[in-house]
């Protein structure tokens, strides 16, 4: 279990997270939705321990960061390091022995090539493969579906469901609502750094309709497209 109590974060005068309370339990996939700048990434970084914050975050496995796989929106890759070496680097960091990598290359990545030469989608798949091979208990996936082709989208959805079946905690954000509908057990709606609602599967369609109405409104018709 991961428990967040009164988690707040400010950058200067700007409050990015405000008293976030959440309880994340094993075997659940938790979605986070919100507009750009709602605080999703900052929330993830606070949970990971990459940002300082006010409040408390506790977990069953401590320290949390040593059991957490964090897929960033835009993973960073060094030049002159191959896909295989990147995976090895991440596994070494957690002292995980890497075996039969070719068989575990679920996205069929060209692991002998420099990772910095990969496309956006391939970079994301490489980062994800490395996190999965780290054998983490908790996963934070920030926009994991961005840039992936349709086949990889299907593979990723299956992976998330498999992680859930293995009793892991998966926290995922996405701007593609259908991907959340297919994977999540609950979705938190974040607005201006505050989780304003927790939504369960039976209400997902209503949430999507509400978000469409709020976000789009009459903006498209105002464009006067002909």
């Amino acid at each position: 279990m991961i428990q967040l109590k009164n988690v707040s974060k400010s950058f200067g005068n700007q409050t990015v997270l405000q008293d976030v309370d959440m309880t994340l339990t094993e075997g659940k996939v938790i979605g986070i939705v919100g507009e750009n700048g709602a605080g999703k990434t900052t929330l993830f970084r606070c949970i990971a321990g990459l940002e300082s914050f006010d409040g408390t975050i506790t977990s069953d496995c401590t320290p949390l960061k040593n059991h957490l796989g964090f897929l960033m929106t835009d993973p960073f890759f060094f030049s002159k390091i191959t896909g295989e070496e990147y995976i090895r680097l991440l596994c070494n960091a957690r002292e995980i022995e890497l075996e039969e990598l070719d068989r575990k290359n679920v996205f069929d990545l060209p692991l002998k090539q420099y990772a910095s030469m990969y496309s956006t989608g391939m970079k994301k798949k490489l980062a994800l493969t490395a996190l999965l091979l780290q054998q983490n208990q908790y996963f934070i996936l920030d926009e994991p579906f961005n840039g992936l082709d349709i086949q990889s989208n299907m593979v990723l959805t299956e992976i998330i469901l498999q992680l859930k079946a293995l009793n892991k905690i998966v926290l995922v954000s996405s701007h593609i609502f259908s991907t959340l509908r297919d994977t999540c057990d609950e979705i938190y709606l974040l607005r201006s750094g505050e989780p304003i609602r927790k939504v369960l599967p039976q209400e997902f369609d209503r949430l999507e309709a509400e978000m469409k109405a709020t976000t789009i409104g009459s903006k498209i018709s105002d464009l006067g497209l002909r």
Partner: protein
Amino acid sequence: MKSYFSLQWVLLIRKLNDLGFNPLISFVLAAAFFIGISELLFYKTLLAPFILIGIALIISIQSNHQAKTEFVRITFGDATAKTIRLIESLLIALPFSISLLIHGAFWQTALLNFLLFVLTYFTFSFTKQSVIPTPFNKRPFEFTIGFRKTVLLLLAAYSLTIVALLVNNFQLGIFSYLVLFMICISFYGQPEEPFFVWIHAKNPKEFLFEKLKIATIYSSLLISIPVLTLLVFYPFDAWIILLFVLIGFVFLWTSILAKYASFPEEINITYSFLIIICAPVPVLLLFLIPFFYKKALHSLKELLP
């Protein structure tokens, strides 16, 4: 091309202003500092020309990191980018070349400029796409990346060992593996993204010792050929060879600790000066190491609780 150098000048002045330094006073002080250190080096050791060459090469490598090279290549095209890089490297090395010439080190000046030329023209295309195999696959990071970026410079350093044996120049032999140490130090010049520290399931102390251990093992691998060769050919000077190996390791460890003492920022200018000051009197490093170690523990505390 002119616009690139104008922009670099503006960036340099802006950086000095941001640090709260008056540019004119900074240039005068930097020149005085450089003259002082190089004079001290020439006074203290016969290896001074080689140390100056090594420092000039490291600064040149550091100033041409991948992102910047890519930006210049995309903006100006391959041919102009190569010329820009060569001019930039020669400008960086200019004070070193002048100092070498003043002290009559003519062939060393030529060697420095030749190595800069090699670095510019060959690394540009040779290391662009192809995956260069390395012996550092088991623990890939600084040495894997660094080896691929400096492979030609490493080959040049090994060639120096051969030349040293052919002309029976013991000092050149020592210089060849000191260059290798300097290259290894350059692998730790830039701070990594905090994520790549955060991923480690270690506390700061374990993290630092792991970094030092890997650096020691892998640099030993790189220097082993010239050092063993020199030990075979100059057995009576074994203690000098091993003393310089020890000095090389101490500089490498100090540089790694200084990097993490400044983390996540780039290595602090003051720290760099402190390390350079220790070049003529390496024993001073023994005071710097505990200082940098404590600072590094503090800097890493946030990411590795």
